[in-house]
């Protein structure tokens, strides 16, 4: 199964994780 997020955000939005990294609830995908 997979979850795909597509969203718009200001240009200064940055992903906090790298591809392939494991994530858990509460960890940020990214921040502004």
């Amino acid at each position, binding site marked *: *199964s997979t*979850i795909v997020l*597509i969203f*718009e955000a*200001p240009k200064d939005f940055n992903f906090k*994780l790298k591809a392939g990294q494991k994530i858990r*609830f*509460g960890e940020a995908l*990214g921040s*502004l």
Partner: protein
Amino acid sequence: VHTATARTLFWLRPLPILLVTGSGYAGYRQYEKYREQELEKLGLEIPPKLAGPWEVALPPAGPQAEAGPVELYVQTCPETALLAPDSSLLPPALRCPQTSQPGGMEAREQGGPVQVGANAPAVTGLGPPQPGGAAALAAQACVQPVYLDLRGKHEGGCRGGPAPLPQPQRVLPAQAEAAGPARMWPAQCDQPVRWEDPELWAGEELRSGAGEGGHLLAGVVPGSAHLHRGPALPSRNQLVTREGNELYHCVIYLAPGDYHCFHSPTDWTVSHRRHFPGSLMSVNPGMARWIKELFCHNERVVLTGDWKHGFFSLTAVGATNVGSIRIYFDRDLHTNSPRYSKGSYNDFSFVTHTNKEGIPMRKGEHLGEFNLG
């Protein structure tokens, strides 16, 4: 055959033929790997290998939607199958290989969670999986308890229970973690396989799957309650609603054994749902790299709406064994059903005369789950 010599008959036997073809194929693969390594040493980029049309068409050719309910019936617990609690549809000889006997299929697939599933204290977050959990799960009559654990909402800060949330401006992953010392690897570990800027949608660089975004949201256009302009692909300009914004794209892979509920990643409002009936091919990263636009072949539910920065969408893509997708607030949604034909889609708008905003979701709120079958 009668007149052939013994030497000729030897070569007609299937085993030597299999040995020769198998070793030939293995040799070819080794040569390819060697060639790729040499090209990498030279600094040359190796183009990704994509599946051909027949390779894409073959896996979903079977009656997957029809097989789903059958599989679910077979895999369902005796209690829910209205059988005696101590019986099972599956005889033990067939039951053990697929559940948790050492080396069993589900044990290999599920890894850690097999132990978790058999271990109530660990499941409820009261402690780590205990030794012998796998052996205890060997007594399970079917696979269903494992999946129930994978999407169960347990108390105590574990698997969707209360957990401290970060600052409001952060976007959360769509899954839950096991908080505190009872964290159980890898039940709640989900693997984002790629982050991409959807600006690449129009390009041919689909190695990372960025081009899937347009097809994934086919016909969904922000504004006007995200209604339904047919299967046309939305352009980037249609999705970006505010000047100065960009589109971002993130794929989170839930491996077998990962937690299979999903949560709202941020505060947003869901205004529209589009269900695409489809196949149930595996979506592991290897398959995603191999089959172009893999997610667009699979059963999926697209939720679209708005967050404070504009357009926001969450798509749940089903896969092998877990093609049934449930959205908690959408009781009309029925996925992985033979009554739907592939290529069609089913829309529902949550914006009504009485509710012009849609369904508000808060960050971390339970949103839905993937089900077996």
